[in-house]
């Protein structure tokens, strides 16, 4: 984010690292279960929910960080960046969905799993930060 880390940023990094590790472990565990144990019924829903919990945690951690960050300029940059990321995700997923609706006959569109939406948001959020910050230089 920035070269000089505020105390809130350090806590945010540590918490996000913990939640991301939990997410990777959950993805690994759930994939293993589906490949080797072939769960049925309600277990399928519960297992699919398991990697989702760290995702909720990552979003909550971001919210907590925004509340804890005392540097209002950094906070403004991050809020604007998250709005840009949300805009990119909404625009792109709508466009892709329309393509899938209208262009399947000509086989133009690759079906993208929905879990990439969160990844797209994270990447857009990361790319938006230096661009937003440039406006203030």
């Amino acid at each position, binding site marked *: 984010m920035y070269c*000089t880390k*505020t105390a809130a940023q350090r806590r945010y990094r540590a918490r996000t690292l913990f939640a991301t590790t939990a997410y990777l472990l959950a993805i690994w565990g759930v994939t293993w279960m589906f490949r080797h144990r072939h769960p049925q019924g309600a277990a399928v829903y519960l297992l699919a929910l398991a990697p989702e919990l760290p995702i909720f945690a990552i979003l909550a951690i971001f919210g907590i960080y925004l509340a804890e960050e005392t540097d*209002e*300029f*950094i906070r403004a940059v991050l809020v604007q960046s998250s709005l840009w990321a949300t805009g990119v995700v909404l625009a792109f997923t709508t466009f892709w969905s329309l393509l899938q609706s209208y262009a399947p006959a000509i086989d133009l569109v690759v079906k993208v799993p929905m879990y990439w939406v969160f990844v797209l948001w994270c990447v857009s959020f990361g790319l938006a930060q230096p661009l937003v910050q440039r*406006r203030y*230089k």
Partner: protein
Amino acid sequence: MKNRLRVLRAEKNWSQADLAQRLEVSRQSVNAIETGKFDPSLPLAFRLARLFDMTIEQIFIDDGSG
């Protein structure tokens, strides 16, 4: 909002990092405020005013665009 922060800082012989440390904000914040591209909140404006022993109006110039 235009302001006299750069001049006031120079008079004290402070770098942006020095001022940022005194205000407990990032250097980027100081730069953004100095260039007039980011308006500080009222509490931060008061902190600036106290630091330079001035009023907010003596630091920030209300050009009526806000």
